[in-house]
């Protein structure tokens, strides 16, 4: 698998830590999924005490703090610096939300924060759209990973703009990319991996499932299938039927 700022992950699955029925279910979901990265929101799940932060550390996977809920660059930068202190990592999933309803990224604030944080030594994982112009600017700002959305956060719609995502993947063949947000089903995750994305990040699809642990396992299997399929050189799509047994050359039995 491709490396993310010098780190090769065991599994292309990144899982969020919010909204589970209990921390115990969260721990079981992580174990069942084989996820290699845990994202954790800093704005609310911090403060004195840190009992929950310790539970996230105890998951034994790499931590990717995020700036969820930040609405401008300044807020996101402050949160990122707090995250670096608390979790002792340069990794930061940079979210700058532009719209409270759709939770779509604010491209301008995102770029501004990415420039500042990259210059400050952070390994920035920007939550972005499939926009290639923005992607270019983020890479120029120093981002060596991109996290395009599948669909709005928490919507469960899967890959909303397949064409846009496919062209983004093709335009930046050397940049590791994670599909972040909008996945609802394991098939969406497999889809993303089959399209050549390097990993997926999700939270609600697992945490809000009736049985989060079973759903976590299903996603773990789906990303394995998707990654294996991508590496197996999938056949192309054709416009007409092609018999799998040619008439000429059929065996005489």
């Amino acid at each position, binding site marked *: 698998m491709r490396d993310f700022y010098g780190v090769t992950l065991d599994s292309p699955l990144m899982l969020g830590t919010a909204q589970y029925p209990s*921390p*115990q279910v969260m721990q079981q979901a992580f174990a069942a999924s084989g996820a290699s990265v845990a994202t954790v929101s800093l704005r609310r799940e911090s403060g*004195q*005490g840190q*009992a*929950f932060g310790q*539970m996230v550390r105890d998951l034994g996977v790499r931590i990717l703090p995020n700036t969820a809920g930040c609405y401008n660059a300044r807020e996101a930068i402050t949160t990122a610096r707090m995250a670096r202190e608390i979790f002792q990592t340069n990794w930061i999933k940079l979210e700058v939300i532009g719209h409270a309803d759709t939770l779509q990224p604010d491209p301008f604030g995102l770029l501004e924060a990415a420039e500042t944080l990259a210059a400050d030594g952070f390994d920035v994982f920007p939550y972005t759209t499939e926009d290639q112009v923005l992607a270019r600017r983020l890479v120029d700002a120093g981002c060596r990973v991109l996290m395009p959305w599948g669909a709005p956060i928490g919507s469960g719609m899967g890959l909303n703009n397949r064409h846009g995502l496919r062209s983004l993947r093709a335009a930046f063949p050397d940049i590791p990319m994670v599909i972040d947000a909008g996945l609802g089903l394991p098939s969406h995750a497999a889809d993303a991996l089959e399209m050549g994305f390097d990993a997926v990040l999700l939270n609600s699809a697992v945490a809000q499932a009736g049985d989060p642990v079973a759903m976590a396992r299903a996603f773990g299997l789906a990303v394995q299938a998707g990654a294996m399929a991508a590496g197996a050189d999938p056949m192309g799509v054709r416009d007409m039927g092609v018999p799998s047994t040619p008439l000429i050359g059929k065996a005489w039995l």
Partner: protein
Amino acid sequence: MGRCITFTRSGPMRDITIIGAGVAGLFAAWHLSQQGWHPRIIDRNGAPGPHGCSWWAGGMLAPICEGVTADPLIARLGGQAADDWAQVTTVTRRGTLVLALDRDRAELSRFARLAPGHRMLDGAALAALEPDLADHRHALHVPSEAHLKPRQALTDLVTALHNRDITIETDQAQPQDVTGPVIDARGMAAALPDLRGVRGEMVVLHAPDITLSRPVRLLHPRHPLYVVPRGDGIVMLGATQIETEARRPITARALLELLSAAYALDARFAESTVLETGTDLRPAFPDNIPRVTVRGRVLHLNGLFRHGYLMAPALARQAADYLTRGTRGELIHED
């Protein structure tokens, strides 16, 4: 501290010390007093008040609605709570109303799938139940649920205990300071391993323009809200659930979210008066299920999470049954 045996007509009463006069400790005293025990209750702050998280509760006895996200054990054991509370305080049995705004109706379908015994409501049925919410179109009713006024319930429980000669002593005490059997119901102060605090924030409004007769839950993917009527035009809005142990006063964000959700439920809330805001930490174990942790002669009753009034009766009963008869209920954990 010497032990004494009090004789009654039914035979000798057994002594036990309960540390902590929150909902868990008081209900333990209530069940134990019915099983031939004479509890002595000690709390460093005396009678229940703003110092304890029981003070800041919603008071919904809603095992089915809670069961949508909580462990099935909560729905099962919480089912008896309304009957237990009715022994000591006024319990209003008018069910729970669950609403969703137009664009969140998928949340309501999902909730309905997971809430047995509910009834989907059309406009007329909703108007009949809560005329003030007649403008809403997506609603269901869980008729078997109930609610109470938490502060009144605590006061009534203290009175009921007082009538049985059980009073609350204001004193500092740790389980090791006391001889004989002890119930430690100190919540966060007990500092048990694996116990964490989950912050909750609430708002009390005076909204005389809106009449509600039962708790209303507004489903929302990001900012769920519940509104619990307290009578006399007073409603409680709750409650956030944040994985932090910060005890600072309510944040502007939480206040905005709670009030915005209430405003979305009914615009008349904008004209209401904010009487009170409150925050506290709910003690919780990693599975968010309360426990009776048995360590020798000490029973730790803790981890009621957001289910204080719903689960305290079951937790207290299991502790009492364990002490009296050695019964090992689902909530008993022997260390």
